[in-house]
């Protein structure tokens, strides 16, 4: 039987390989490093970076975005404590404590995400 250039099965083979590749990429990027770091951003600009594994006592701080939101950091994780926004979706996200989790307050333009980076790229000094 003649082998043609392209058959439908080829699509599945290629997609399977791509998916495995993408999954491995995501797995590796999530499993890299030991520490959990929370990054607080306002409109894409970093406002604050917190090493969650180093938090011993809880505290709160205010981010003055388009609205003033209060964020709580504790040894358990990080969360939006309160926000004057109408829908309170950000508060409903609840506690973030795993790599890759994200909570956003769209009206305030403030986001909190947890990255899996504990290591550094370079050292000065």
């Amino acid at each position, binding site marked *: 039987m003649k082998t043609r*250039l*392209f*058959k*439908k099965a*080829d*699509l599945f083979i*290629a*997609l399977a390989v*791509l998916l495995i*590749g*993408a999954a491995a*990429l995501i797995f590796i990027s999530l499993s890299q490093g030991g520490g959990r*770091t929370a*990054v607080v951003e306002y409109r894409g*600009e*970093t*406002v*604050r*970076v*917190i*090493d969650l594994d*180093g938090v011993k006592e809880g505290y709160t701080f205010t981010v003055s975005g388009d609205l003033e939101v209060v964020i709580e950091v504790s040894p358990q994780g990080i969360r939006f404590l309160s926000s004057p926004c109408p829908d309170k979706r950000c508060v409903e996200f609840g506690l973030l404590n795993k790599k890759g989790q994200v909570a956003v307050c769209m009206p305030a333009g403030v986001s909190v995400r947890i*990255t899996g*980076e504990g*290591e*550094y*790229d*370079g*050292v*000065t*000094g």
Partner: protein
Amino acid sequence: MKKAALILVSLALTLAVSCAAPYRGTVEYAMGAEVTQTVWGAGEDCLKAAFDAIAALEEDVSYRKDGGVALLNSGGTLASRGDAYDIIVKSAELWRDTGGAYDITVLPLVRAWGFDSGEPHIPAASELASALAITGGENIIFGADGIRLANGAQIDLSAAGKGAACQKAVETYKAYGASGGIVTVGGSVGVFGTKNGKNFRIAVRSPFDPAGAAAVLTLTDTYISTSGSYEKRFFADGAEYHHLLDPSTGYPVHNGLISVTVVCGDGALSDMLSSACFCMGMEKSLPLLEKYSASALFVREDGAVFVTKELAPYVECESYEVLP
């Protein structure tokens, strides 16, 4: 079906390009320090070109080599162009701005203390006095045909070279179309672009634990340099001496600081400012940093960390104070 194949190929290519694999270079040596490089979206040729650029810079700015600085130190006149010339011009300006606290004519002092030989010792009073006599930025004479040194002065650009080297590397990464890159030359770091969309995390070495970090900075498109008294030091007669010398006294600076990290958009300046700020102390450093659009992280001998307000959002640290 042909169309589907075409879409598939382009999809795969886009995916491949968008998550460029990092290309890590081997550790090499230049400027008397380790050079490490990693680029995203470029390959070995880019890293090689960047290292060549650093080596070419070293040739011109190291007093141990045979370039511009060696020419000046042997009494020659350096024409008004080139890497060494550019750094000397910046240095002269910083010398004025710091009231002499940053001085590239400290080479005789460095030699008197033996910090260049690896066998540091307390110099004899007469030795120190004769070294001090020929130290001073006023001995750098800018003439119509270039620069020359008066009064037997000797210059040392090692407080600028590593930062300048980082900039040479980053300029090469840009020229090769890389999407991101990080270079470290000794304690200086240059960061450019992103690593697949993420900024670079740079640890500020802990003065109290060589393997630990006093803080972590998350940055891109800038240069970071640190001057720390913990780097080269020795003990003699029950006291500790380090290599960051005060050009006015000839003795190691003692003002309560143990390390200063400066973040600046110019590589050589980040390096120079870290030395200058260490010598001047925290308070006097603030207006200087502002003038050069730079920011800094100070570590005091008691371990307390202070950060300028521009840098504060990018700092990860157990506890620190933000400077006004």
